[in-house]
């Protein structure tokens, strides 16, 4: 187990019995291996399983659900379910392609997993239908529903049996962006309300930020796949390891860090950490580290946390510690909602994004990038990201 994994487990300050889910497993298939997975979730925790296509997210979920043989141990609320068949694990699944039973009505789909008295079934289906806003669809056949409606039914079908763990495999990938946004909101509300423990596999960062408490990043290297980083969303995306930074488009730079006496740590304290000064070639920046240190350092800045200003402007900086960087624009790329800018300051290249309200014009233009120290996350290299 890696050091940051250990520290997360220690920091959580809980002993094993308090976890709702405790997974330790490996899966070996003919052309694919998933090694040394360790996941612990508290009751009601929402874990995003982030990884590129083919990184084994589905395999991991299906191993936990019991569809793939695996070695290791899966403890769910104190029950060892490693050897149990899927039908006795009390684990719900939701898939990207909905897999509603085509010959059954929406009502029958939802009622499928309920084996009790008819009145009870009717009441429970009605409850979950109200929760997922599908009361008006109960008599319909799945083929007549829209994608968003199908997925709401599929989630209702999984939730109605009150699973102790809900596994969702790219549940929103087949939906259009507007529906996806709607459904995220609904899922967030319902999952909180029912206090379900969830593992949600996705390659979409928006899913992670809008839903998850914690995140676990899977990466594939050749035939093997493993978890490269896990922790709270805030932690992982502030102090990403190199692979995660690359996957998520976070600026990841190598520099040299020093303790700084420049400022008191009073302001930074509320964000957690201590101020350090980093040298990136000829560029000097103030950033935060979990604990001040001196030595080779990784510097991580999320692209959306820059302020982009005309060259001659400065914003109000009461503490005099805002990083203000003069840059030259290398590349401007527009997407639907954002403008992506690649800019160079000395030997360093930053990637940042701004809303299109700012007119960033042409390559070679001079710009000023500003970024607050608490958004420049620094950790020592050659060791342990969490120290």
């Amino acid at each position: 187990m890696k050091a940051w994994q250990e520290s997360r487990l220690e920091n959580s300050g809980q002993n094993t019995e308090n976890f709702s889910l405790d997974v330790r497993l490996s899966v070996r298939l003919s052309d694919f291996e998933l090694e040394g997975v360790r996941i612990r979730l508290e009751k009601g925790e929402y874990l995003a399983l982030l990884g590129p296509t083919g990184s084994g997210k589905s395999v991991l979920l299906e191993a936990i659900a019991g569809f793939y043989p695996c070695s290791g141990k899966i403890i769910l609320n104190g029950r060892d379910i490693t050897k149990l068949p899927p039908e006795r694990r009390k684990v719900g699944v939701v898939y990207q392609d909905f897999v509603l039973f085509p010959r059954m009505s929406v009502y029958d789909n939802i009622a499928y997993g309920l084996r009790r008295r008819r009145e009870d079934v009717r009441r429970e289906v009605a409850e979950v239908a109200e929760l997922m806003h599908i009361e008006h669809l109960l008599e319909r056949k799945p083929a007549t529903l829209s994608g968003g409606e199908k997925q709401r039914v599929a989630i209702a079908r999984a939730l109605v049996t009150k699973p102790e763990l809900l596994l969702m495999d790219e549940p929103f990938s087949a939906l259009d962006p507007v529906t996806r946004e709607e459904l995220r909101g609904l899922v967030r509300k319902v999952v909180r309300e029912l206090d379900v423990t969830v593992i949600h596999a996705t390659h979409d960062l928006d899913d992670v930020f809008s839903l998850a408490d914690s995140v676990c990043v899977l990466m594939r290297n050749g035939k093997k796949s493993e978890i490269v980083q896990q922790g709270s969303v805030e932690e992982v995306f502030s102090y990403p390891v190199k692979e995660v930074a690359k996957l998520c488009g976070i600026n990841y730079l190598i520099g040299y860090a020093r303790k700084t006496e420049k400022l008191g740590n009073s302001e930074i304290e509320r964000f957690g950490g201590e101020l350090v000064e980093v040298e990136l070639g000829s560029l000097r920046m103030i950033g935060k580290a979990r604990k001040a240190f001196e030595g080779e350092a990784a510097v991580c800045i999320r692209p959306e946390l820059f302020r982009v200003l005309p060259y001659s402007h400065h914003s109000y900086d009461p503490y005099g510690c805002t990083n203000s960087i003069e840059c030259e624009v290398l590349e401007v790329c527009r997407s639907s909602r954002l403008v992506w800018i690649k800019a160079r300051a000395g030997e360093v290249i930053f990637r940042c994004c701004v809303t299109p309200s700012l007119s960033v014009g042409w390559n070679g233009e001079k710009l000023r990038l500003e970024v607050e120290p608490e958004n420049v996350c620094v950790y020592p290299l050659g060791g342990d990201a969490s120290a």
Partner: protein
Amino acid sequence: MKFRHLCIAVSAAVTAFLFLAVLSLFLFPEPSAVLECLKSREIVYSIKLSVTTSSISTALVMLTAIPVAYSLARYSFPGRSLVKSVIDLPIAFPELVLGLCLLVFLGSYLKLGIVFTKPAIVVAQYFTALPYAARILYSTFEGISERYEFASRSLGYGEFGTFLRITLPMAREGIFASSIITFSRCMGTFGAVLVLAGGMYMNTETLPITLYLNLSYGNLNMAVTSGLVLITLSFLAILVFELLEGSNIETGGVER
């Protein structure tokens, strides 16, 4: 003439030729002679025998082809590819030789005493038709995403319960199609039945045997009549299938 015109012309020509050949069978005999033949004891006997044996064979084929096809589509097990090739074999295997193999095996080794009896007809039909049914069912089961079964199992149903409640209903079209084809194939089985059951007059005489026997006596009307009955029964089977399919679509088919 462009390439696509050439292709279409070839298909049109072949279809027209086949269609005319079938039509000629209907136009060739005197209708009164056909009616006369239909009333003959021999034809009535062989129709009854063919329909009975084919029904039994179809039931047996479906009963075994479903688990065979399902295991091939879902599970990996040692010898899986062997099972698959054995099932595919008779498609390229001459029917007559298949009959001979069964004759030697059942007659000389197992010595069950069913060779040259009516049960032998069922055995011959069963082994000729099984590969066809297993093939269709195999692709049917393969076409059903395993995730439907996963979803059902996560909702508390075991493997068998899931198979009964989810997989079988979703495979309904494939099961209909393969049973119709199996039945037609059983009705038409000739070589294997001839070798294994002997093709004895008014004993192990199925419709194709009637056709063959009467053709060799030079009794053309009887031969043509049994041919007509065979064709009609096949068409009826296809018609029934189409009707069932049609009514099925209205009540909501498989989600695509």
